[in-house]
């Protein structure tokens, strides 16, 4: 059979290494999965990107660290030690023969499906920062956990505004949280439990702020203030020095004259714990919105399998709820089920959490929309404000004159369908930066839903694509086999495509075509 030599047909990707089971994420779910798979005799590689290099943390990747790490994070050996010591199950995994790789990030999962047929089976792209490579696997268990929803208010880009997941990661697993007195935003179970844990670890909790009139979960003895609007974070070169709040009026706006300045060095966002689905979405797993499971989550069967059978999912990235957040054994059980390929016995699955849709919409309404601030960037990478998003303004660097004519806003995109964050991104660049929307995607979705008057669940998730961690060209670079290099073409390598039109014969046949060669166009 003839193969088009410029195509991928006949080329085979041979991964540098292989394993039966690849587990991604060394949290409770991933560790339980790795231990269970090893117990069953499978070869297991367990990767976790922690400890994350300090420079990457500075960019709020993978979590919204808000620059609140101590200098200790520059010492990778110490961080590695701290991370291993933070969970005895890591040592247990080593002992059980699991091939544990810390400081190794998975940046892509690949598998044949509609429109892709050349891959030799399930693959994952890994990187240790200095190099990248592919690993072939029979099964992949994704246990990548959660991250935090961002919330834009004036000053939120200051050092010291970070997410609750990031704060706990730094405090409990790295021993490197640089915070003394914090204000927590949000009264979700995750926010309140997190505040209590941080308090136990020595962080003063100055206040817990809730924009609604009642908290979502029981605050216990935490200093809760309800019915408040966040006005701004004040600060100096070292970061936040205070958070200014005000009473929320009937109209949703701050009541004049009620500003209250709370001194603090840290503001912790606990409005939304979000399942980290980046690898799953990029791989093509089916994703659906579930208000009870923390947002967009993979669609799973009873044995934790995604729509791609070789990929199973466990822990927070499968869905977040108060019960799972409070009881680690639920995530661990999911991990074991994912490894064993076993359906859950009745009642063993995590119960649903709160309905987060209305809650998040309310925070965005009270903070981004009520402030209508012209200087606060919702997308920090690309410096896009809420108004620029809703008015679909071309990015400022284009210098496009606002002639008043031909002005378009979100409504001009809505046909029969809901607003689409990717379409808005293409026009405004919101979510197109280095962090690929980690800090802004939930806020943008809320803005679009509020503006279009539809439910949050109707707004599709902005797509994730590999690499889900930024990879330098030199690190991403892969070798070309000789045949690929010999036939590498800018485009399709069809001579006839580039024949000047005045030389084109009256008839074309496959037999009469010129031997394929490299072309020259784009």
């Amino acid at each position, binding site marked *: 059979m*003839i193969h*088009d030599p*410029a*195509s*991928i*047909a*006949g*080329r*085979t*990707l*041979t*991964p540098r290494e292989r394993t039966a089971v690849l587990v991604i994420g060394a949290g409770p779910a991933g560790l339980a999965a790795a231990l269970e798979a090893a117990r069953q005799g499978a070869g297991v590689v367990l990767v976790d990107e922690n400890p994350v290099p300090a420079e990457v943390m500075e960019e709020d990747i993978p979590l919204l660290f808000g620059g609140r790490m101590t200098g200790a994070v520059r010492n990778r050996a110490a961080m590695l030690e701290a991370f291993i010591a933070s969970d005895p199950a890591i040592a247990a995994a080593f002992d059980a023969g699991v091939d544990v790789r810390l400081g190794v990030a998975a940046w892509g999962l*690949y598998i*044949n499906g*509609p*429109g*892709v*047929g*050349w*891959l*030799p*089976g399930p693959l994952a*792209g890994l990187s240790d920062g200095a190099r990248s490579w*592919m690993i072939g696997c029979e099964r992949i268990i994704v246990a990548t956990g959660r991250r935090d929803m961002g919330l834009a208010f004036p000053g939120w880009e200051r050092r010291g505004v970070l997410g609750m997941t990031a704060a706990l990661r730094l405090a409990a697993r790295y021993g490197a949280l640089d915070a003394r007195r914090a204000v927590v935003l949000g009264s979700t179970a995750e926010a309140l439990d997190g505040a209590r844990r941080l308090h136990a670890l020595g962080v003063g909790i100055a206040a817990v702020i809730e924009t609604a009139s009642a908290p979502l979960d029981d605050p216990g003895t935490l200093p809760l203030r309800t019915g408040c609007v966040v006005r701004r974070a004040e600060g100096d070169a070292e970061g936040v020095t205070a958070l200014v709040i005000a009473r929320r009026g009937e109209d949703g706006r701050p009541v004049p004259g009620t500003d209250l300045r709370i001194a603090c060095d840290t503001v912790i966002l606990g409005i939304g714990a979000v399942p980290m689905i980046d690898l799953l979405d990029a791989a*093509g797993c089916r994703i659906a919105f579930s208000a009870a499971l923390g947002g967009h989550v993979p669609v799973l069967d009873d044995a934790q399998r995604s729509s791609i059978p070789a990929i199973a999912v466990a822990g927070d990235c499968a869905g977040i709820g108060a019960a799972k957040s409070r009881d680690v054994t639920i995530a661990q059980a999911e991990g074991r089920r994912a490894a064993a390929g076993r359906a859950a016995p009745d009642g063993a699955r995590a119960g649903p959490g709160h309905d987060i849709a209305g809650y998040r919409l309310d925070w965005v309404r009270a903070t981004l929309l009520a402030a209508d601030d012209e200087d606060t960037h919702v997308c920090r990478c*690309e410096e896009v404000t809420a108004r620029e998003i809703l008015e679909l303004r071309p990015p400022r660097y284009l210098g*496009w004159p606002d002639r008043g004519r*031909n002005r378009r806003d979100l409504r001009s*995109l809505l*046909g*029969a*369908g809901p607003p689409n964050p990717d*379409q808005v991104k293409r026009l405004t660049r919101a979510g197109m*930066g280095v962090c690929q929307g980690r800090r802004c995607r939930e806020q943008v979705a809320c803005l679009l839903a509020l503006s279009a008057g539809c439910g949050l669940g109707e707004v599709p998730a902005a797509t994730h*694509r*590999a*690499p889900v961690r*930024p990879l*330098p*060209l*030199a690190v*991403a*670079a*892969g070798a*070309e*086999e000789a045949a*690929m290099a010999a036939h590498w073409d*800018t485009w*399709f390598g*069809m001579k006839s*495509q580039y*024949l000047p*039109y005045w030389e*084109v014969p009256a*008839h074309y*046949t*496959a037999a009469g075509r010129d031997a394929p060669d490299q072309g*020259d*166009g*784009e």
Partner: protein
Amino acid sequence: MSGTGASVIIIGAGATGLSAGWWLARDGVDVLAIDRGIVGWEASGRNGGGCTHPFSPLFAEEQRLWPMMDELLGYPTEFRPQRIRVAFDAGQFARSAQAARDAARQGFASEVLDIAELRRLAPLVGDGVHGAHLHRFGGHANPHRTVQAYAWAMQDHGGQVMQHTAVTGFTGSGGRVSGVHTDRGTFGCDHLVLAAGPQTRRLAALLGIDLPMAAARAEMIVTEPLPLMPLGGVDGNGLYGRQTLRGNLAYGGGPHEWIDPNGIGATPPPSTPLMRQIAGRLARLLPRAAHARVIRSWAGIVENTPDGRPVIDRFGNVTIATMSSIGFGLSPASGHAIRDLVQEGACGFADLSSLRLSRFERLEPDWISRQGWQPPSGAGTSGQAGSAGRMLS
């Protein structure tokens, strides 16, 4: 919604269909573009943005229009003129020279750059360069902005765009179509334009028109922003692409995969580890950017005719336009040509005889296998690593 319609219905709101709709609406024609998804969601929003096709009969019009498009449409396209082609060997250089000769014959200049001048215009280029051309023609635009600009401009002139509406069939056949069936009702029309990208073959077949086509997946990558080079349109080393006005490097090239377009819904397939080879090539083309981080990769589906040239042709009251993988850059001109075909019956500004469907009259029925364009065997399965052409990755 049944019973409504438009004088001209265009199927496919990609760059081709939207440009045609804009040209027709400017003429005051009652025109409706129907798309199963969002405007420009397929190849038209996933391509390299290159506007440099000196071998095409539409080249002169492509070059005439692009510098005016922002003004004409009323929305930014980010068009930037001129291209540099960097060659790493004599073969690459010869092909770039051929493009220069084809353009020269049509009145467009190129020059050979010395290394100092190359470095001045494209400071991210490094060593090992065999030679480079500066083409004082062509250029690139931002596909995302351009497709939306077409759609808005078309609407500004009274045209209609209907998204999320899939065409399922027709009333009438051959060159006499009077109605378009969709999943949201039937729409009447006096003239039909088929511009549905890789789906054009299937839709044409419903009208009894045999349009030979195959589909392939092509991939691209983009990096974080870097300081702007004086000239952002730098191709070479087997890659096409550009530095965006924001500073990102967006590049593609290398192996494509022939696929069955019918197995794919409105969401294009994901990219594959070919990202790594594209990254390697880009690091060699622009070594001073080797530290720049890849932040995303994607794939798009390309529509190809057997000779890689567009088909723009009219049959009765049906006009067919499929652009064979070079349709973004040519879109200002292809829309103009489609307008002419619909309104006048023939293109008034260029000789489109090389783009007629009749050139395939003698095409062998088994042309796909003769050209080796069938999807890889075992596609969709997780087969074993073959022995031929191993690639250690």
